């Protein structure tokens, strides 16, 4: 009796420890290659590394130079804010509206859903190249409309320093709105029918039902979309590189392209590392409160 009990406990412990054992290699790899190298980048940003890494500590001099003597960095940060906020706002608005429209049990729903989701299958590089040709004043939209007869039509955003960042927003929204549409559509389908029926019995009109009941209950989908979209926005290196290469001058520079140029092309490794750490801290500032609220929520539940 005792023997079988002991064997049971050993088997239990093994069964409990097996997932940990299986995950251990991956966990170790992530610890070293992700967090270890983040720590390495942080260390490099506190040194004076130029071409190759050099480990002599010089304090936060690189950060000071970055924020006080580098006008291109401020352009990059401003562009990140403008791009992220417009990208997230337009993607969510467009995705939500399209999802609501598709939710009306239209006939060719599957067909429309596929069309809207298709751009997501392209890489940002393809999107960037295609939109670069479309928005080129000599080859694309402007020339097309002028040839249609509207000879005074101009659409020079791509080659205008002040407007080029909005072309990046345009291309990115075109690519990602379909993905948000899919998320919202799934969320809409998950809403309990009985609530809607109850509201209809109470005499509420359809727009009011959407505004007051359905959209608020989609709050988790909003949150996931914002998290995923902001991650795409901060990562947007390939889209900018292909569409504008940093834009007329450096007007569409982003922290990611800034970091690459300074760390690898200009032999200012520590300076680039400092800009990378600032990007990292910005992402942390978004993620940590989110994680905190999620964990606190589950504990209370």
């Amino acid at each position, binding site marked *: 009796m005792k023997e079988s009990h002991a064997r049971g406990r050993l088997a239990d412990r093994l069964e409990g420890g097996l997932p940990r054992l299986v995950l251990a290699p991956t966990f170790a790899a992530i610890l070293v290659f992700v967090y270890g190298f983040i720590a390495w980048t942080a260390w490099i940003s506190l040194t004076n590394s*130029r071409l190759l890494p050099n480990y002599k500590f010089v304090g936060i001099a690189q950060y000071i130079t970055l924020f006080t003597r580098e*006008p291109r960095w401020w352009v990059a940060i401003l562009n990140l804010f403008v791009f992220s906020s417009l990208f997230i706002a337009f993607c969510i608005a467009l995705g939500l509206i399209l999802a609501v429209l598709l939710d009306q049990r239209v006939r060719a729903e599957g067909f429309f859903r596929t069309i809207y989701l298709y751009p997501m299958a392209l890489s940002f590089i393809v999107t960037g190249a295609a939109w670069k040709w479309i928005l*080129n*004043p000599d080859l694309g939209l402007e020339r097309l409309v002028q040839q249609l007869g509207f000879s005074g039509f101009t659409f020079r955003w791509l080659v205008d320093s002040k407007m080029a960042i909005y072309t990046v927003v345009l291309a990115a929204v075109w690519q990602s709105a379909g993905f948000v549409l899919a998320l919202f559509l799934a969320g809409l389908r998950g809403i309990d029918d009985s609530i809607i029926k109850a509201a209809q019995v109470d005499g509420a009109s359809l727009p009011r039902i959407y505004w007051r009941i359905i959209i608020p209950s989609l709050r988790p989908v909003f949150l996931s979309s914002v998290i995923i979209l902001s991650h795409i926005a901060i990562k947007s290196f390939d889209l900018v590189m292909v569409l504008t290469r940093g*834009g*007329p001058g450096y007007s569409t520079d982003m922290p990611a392209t800034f970091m690459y140029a*300074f760390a690898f*092309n*200009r032999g*200012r490794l520590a300076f680039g590392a400092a800009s990378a750490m600032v990007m990292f801290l910005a992402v942390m500032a978004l993620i940590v409160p989110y994680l905190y609220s999620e964990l606190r929520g589950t504990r209370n539940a």
Partner: protein
Amino acid sequence: MKRLVIAVLLVGLVAFGAMAGEVEVLHWWTSGGEAAAVAVLKQLLEKEGHTWKDFAVAGGGGDAAMTVLKSRAVAGNPPTAAQVKGPQIQLWGDEGVLTNLDDVAKAEKWDTLLPKVVADVMKYQGHYVAVPVNVHRINWMWVNPAVFKKAGAKIPTTWAEFETAAKKIQAAGFIPVAWGGEPWQEATVFETIVAGLGGTDFYKQSMIEAKPEALNSATMVKVLETLRMVTQYTDKGAPGRSWNLATAMVIKGEAAMQFMGDWAKGEFTAAGKKPDVDYIAARAPGTAKQFLFNIDSFIMFKVKSAENEKAQKAMARLILQPDFQKVFNVNKGSIPVRMGMPASAFDIPAQLSMKDFAASSKSGDLVPSMAHEMAVFPAIRGAIMDVVTNYINSDLSAKDAAAQMANAVQAAM
């Protein structure tokens, strides 16, 4: 006894085979003419019994190749030779990984074959660590004479004449300057104006020594104003255009001139155009005596085995010998860096270039190009280029831009 003899012979053969070393060469010459040119060096090396291990990393400007090189160097396993040019050679020398080529230099008399300006770039603390391969000239102006004739304009020799000619060309309905709005192209035109308007001494102080007083000076303000003037005569599709598309505009007769280095000649030749008939290679306004050079070179790393070192020294020797210099440069469209080569194998623009190379070397007007990473460290070049490209693409004033340039250079040092 017989078995002993055979064994000794076998060992001897193997040992003889092991006398030939291997060179692993990192470069980014992957397109047609360039790859053919590198193949020549490979053949010459293999004729001497060594092996060539090619390590080509595609990517025109060499960015990808440089990143690969850095990771190899940090890992302690650099290739035998790598295509690195300009002040970057000094940065690599600082890391202590480069070998000493003084014995080859002395035997081949490199100090007499190379202009001093060039030899200094190849030396680290007085010792040769790199070997130059070719010379490109930056300050060319590629002209379509038919467009000039139709507009009734004269090919300009000064920047003031340029404005007159550009106005006439624009009035005749052509685009005066074919422009590619990429930072390096904008920097190329910028430094051409610095040399043409400011003179060689000003160029040396601002673009090579990067002195803040030279960068934030009245001459620099004048240079920047001239640059702004030149950009008025470009077309709206210029931002982001690659250089060969701009050359195509000149070839097709849509634009009158392009300020570009001598690699643009390849585009004209490929389009079947003849020099002095369909196109004219003129010196950029104001730079008739000056030669802004861009020299590709191979740096040599310290290698562990003696045979590989022999192969490495053989490669360095072969690069500067007349056979390779002739074949490589005819294939690549540049001119030999070895002085005193017969000009008969080269075409007319190249012959003109070779004459100017020798003449400017004597007169002290042979200067390294800032825009093509020959004059200053990459950090300083990047700082200057940022200011120039921002100036061109915004409504920053010339005075503010000059001040920003001095600030940026000091911050980058």
